């Protein structure tokens, strides 16, 4: 899932300081799962904004809603009725949701309530970790199911670097060295020969370096 982290109330309030009526819009997708942008967080944010503005003597009206997914035009379309008199939308979705709303409703100011952090999962309740670097050319088959692109601090393909020590990354002793994990995994599986070949230079044009990516599937086009 996409993991996002709420911005501070002060930062969000700063974006909407001229607004009198805001739509606080949650997303029922990833950000609900990672406890940062679902209906519960929408309600808390709306109350907090109203209290802050009341304290400042500039009361604000809030409308609260959570779309099934903000990254889906079909759902985004349905929110048009909620925009009556609204001069700003605060989106609790990831960066994709914020942009979908801004594209569909260009006359309204849409601001983010979150910092979109990474693609990852929960390792324990309240802890999320990054797992995929979205490089566009998955190499997990040769690295024992462990991604060096995102789990190695240097994204190196022929690791580990000299900064790896006792299975830890030099950048942060709480971070396991991805290449030690890969080594241990391949050793366990009797596939260490995978590590002996020099991994060739990567085609980063399939990653973000090629510009914004687009994926077309002819077989499902309408």
């Amino acid at each position: 899932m996409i993991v996002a982290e709420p911005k501070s109330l002060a930062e969000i309030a700063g974006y909407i300081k001229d607004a009198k009526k805001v739509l606080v819009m949650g997303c029922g997708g990833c950000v609900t799962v990672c406890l940062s942008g679902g209906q519960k967080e929408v309600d808390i944010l709306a109350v907090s904004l109203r209290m802050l503005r009341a304290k400042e003597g500039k009361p604000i009206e809030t409308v609260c809603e959570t779309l099934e997914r903000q990254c889906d035009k079909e759902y985004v379309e349905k929110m048009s009725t909620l925009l009556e008199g609204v001069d700003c939308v605060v989106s609790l979705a990831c960066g994709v949701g914020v942009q979908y709303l801004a594209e569909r409703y260009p006359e309204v100011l849409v601001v983010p309530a979150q910092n979109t952090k990474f693609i990852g999962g929960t390792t324990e309740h309240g802890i999320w970790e990054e797992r995929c670097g979205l490089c566009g050319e998955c190499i997990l088959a040769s690295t024992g199911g462990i991604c060096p692109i995102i789990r190695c601090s240097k994204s190196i393909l022929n690791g580990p670097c000299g900064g790896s020590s006792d299975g830890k990354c030099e950048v942060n002793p709480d971070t396991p060295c991805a290449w030690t994990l890969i080594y241990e995994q391949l050793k366990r599986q009797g596939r260490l020969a995978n590590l002996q070949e020099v991994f060739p230079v990567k085609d980063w044009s399939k990653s973000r370096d090629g510009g914004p990516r687009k994926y077309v599937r002819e077989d499902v086009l309408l």
Partner: protein
Amino acid sequence: MSEREATPELTTESKLERLFSQGHFVVTSEIGPQKGASAQNIITHTRESRQYCDGFNLTDNQSAVVRLSSIAAGIHVLQHGGTPIIQMTCRDRNRIAMQSDLLGAYSLGVRDVLCLSGDHQSFGNHPTAKNVYDIDSIQLIALVKKMRDEKKLVNGEEIKHEPRFYIGAVENPCGDPVELRVMRLEKKVQAGAQFIQTQTIFDIKKFEHWMRLVRDAGIDRRVNIMAGVLPVKSLRALKFMKENVAGMSVPDELIDRMSQAQDPQEEGKTITVELIERLKKIDGVKGIHIMPVGWEAVLPEIVTRAGFLPRPE
């Protein structure tokens, strides 16, 4: 020309390659360029110490701190009679910039390059910088070899005037797991590394163990391994290495010696000379790389006491 004819197996015009092939025990050192637009320290040190070693590494923004560039520093070394070994890390440049800089460095007379990953930017003076790592150190080794031996850029395009570098790499013999370190060393050699400068060695036992594995794999016959040493000035410096440098092993015995020393600088030199004495006797070690970080002036004394003089031409 006569020398080249006498040793036809040489791949480059590198002095280091020639010395290794002639069977000399090679001694290199290191100069850290400064955080400013002056090469005075490089020039002074080159002039004063060039006869005490066979080449100087020029670090590439060491510890991820912005400094005068390694290639520019190397040219200063060349201009003052020294042999530069330019370090090239993968942290700050993509394959376009690295190949361009390699062409430029060769055109200016540099013949030796040391390929490294580079310290992560979070350790340096620009921790908010974006790192590059378009290619890694092993891919860089292969790239330099491809340019030289195939006259091709990494994309396969042919070039007319190929840079003919003698290719170096680094390895950390004290990092764990040691089997993985040996495997990675082999990969570097397979990619094209011709000489290896190791991370600083304080723990002879660990180094001997690594070296045994290296010999068992026959790697020492395919690459010239130089053991790294770092003269320490104080107990604080030694403790810092033990506690803060990833993969560094410093035996307690050395800490005790430094803590009891009347004159820590003198003790630091003695420890270094003793380490060199032991390292040079280990089968498969073909040279010593001395890293007098921030203490360049100590080089002549260390080399003299280690019995490495005179250096071959």
